[in-house]
């Protein structure tokens, strides 16, 4: 049983807001910035994106090739492990499904786990099943404008059904793996999977 905090009332929320907020989250209208180090800056001429199979085969796109792939626009609620949630964020990018099927044509075979690798050295891991079936994108537009560097531009992974640290900023590569490999925060005490609706914030949360 939870401990009642004497005199605490909290903010009254509409049923609609309450229903969209995972446990322990609050709604913000801002877009807070969280990252563990300085914001990397990569020129678009030097930027490329790689999808690497477990056997080392790769598919690679330059910025122009990447942004010429069929785009999707998606509107999602996002949930940060630091407790804020933001509703109806609008993103534009390439579905990971599209990347996988383009890569399959180049001989890149699917594998059950994915490690996203980023400029600045950040990594995060997700099961393949969580980035396929219309659940994940590599996004380069936010609210109709190029994604700002502090929010992960030129491009970030977008996996909105998991805590937002899984939506890796400055992503440059998705590496397919036969066995799971914990990423940056997953090695530093955060949950390996990170489902906000089950409040899987930290290692050991069920």
């Amino acid at each position, binding site marked *: 049983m*939870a*401990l*009642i*905090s*004497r*005199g*605490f*009332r*909290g*903010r009254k929320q509409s049923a609609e807001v309450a229903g969209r907020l995972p*446990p*322990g*989250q*609050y709604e*913000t209208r*801002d*877009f*807070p*910035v*969280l*990252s*563990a*180090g*300085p*914001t*990397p800056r990569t020129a678009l001429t030097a930027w490329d994106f790689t999808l690497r199979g477990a056997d080392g085969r790769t598919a690679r796109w330059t910025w122009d090739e990447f942004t010429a792939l069929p785009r999707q626009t998606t509107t999602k609620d996002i949930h940060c492990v*630091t*407790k804020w949630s933001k509703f109806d964020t609008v993103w534009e990018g390439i579905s990971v499904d599209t990347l996988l099927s383009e890569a399959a044509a180049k001989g890149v075979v699917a594998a059950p786990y994915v490690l996203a690798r980023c400029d*600045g*050295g950040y990594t995060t891991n997700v099961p393949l099943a969580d980035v396929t079936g219309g659940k994940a994108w590599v996004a380069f537009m936010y609210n109709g404008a190029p994604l700002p560097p*502090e929010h992960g531009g030129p491009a970030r992974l977008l996996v909105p059904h998991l805590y937002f640290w899984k939506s890796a900023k400055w992503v440059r590569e998705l590496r397919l793996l036969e066995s799971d490999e914990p990423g*940056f*925060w997953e*090695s*530093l*005490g955060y949950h390996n999977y990170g489902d906000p609706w089950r409040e899987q*914030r*930290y*290692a*050991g*949360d069920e």
Partner: protein
Amino acid sequence: MSPVGIGQKISWRVATVIDVVPETQRTRTLVLDVPDWPGHSAGQHVDVRLTSEDGYQAERSYSIASPPEDARLSLTVEQLKDGEVSPYLSEELRAGDTIELRGPIGGYFVWDIPVGGPLFLVAGGSGIVPLMAMLRHRNAALAKSGDARHMIPARLLYSSRRWDEVIYRDELARLAASDPTLEVVHTLTRDRPEGWTGFTRRIDREMLEEVAWPPSEQPRVFVCGPTPLVESAANALVEIGHQPALVKTERFGPTGGSV
């Protein structure tokens, strides 16, 4: 060395407020007794959970202000305008009350003596809190060894709007006065007391070049404050030549915050 708490389940605990210490007009320190606290590293934080009588719950994260050496856990809380949890913690809560918390959390923005130095800290406003835990931890080690020459040199560059908004102002002055290997440099961005001779502008590249060790010394850098301050300070440090991997950042607050 792995920070405390990594790999263990982080369970909710009931903490009792032992004391409430005013720091500035908008900040107070909650001194807590936490049974079976597993210990922590300087720089880590806790999650606090409040529950209203009708069962509504709110959670927020707060940096730990106390060093691992203290028997009690201290959190310094700034009252945010329109905040939901911070006004309760900074106004309503009093000695004898209990709150739920869990931690320690965070394994990256941490500094322990074995990490080494020199240690360069950059704070904006209440971003000083986790950095203060590092300075207190460092000082506790100094008190133990009793020899300043064996100390890891440290510098703090601390941006506040006004002199009376400088959190831990007297303690920082005391620490710097008693320790030749610690330098504390303030910049005041809005108002200055009469006769102020220190910096009077937001932290910029020139100020960082003046105050920080050069990149060749490979200082361990920790930057904590509102997002715009952290963004500009971290970017400037990288431009100066500091390795991005040695510049650790913690950002908080809304996107438009300023100190």
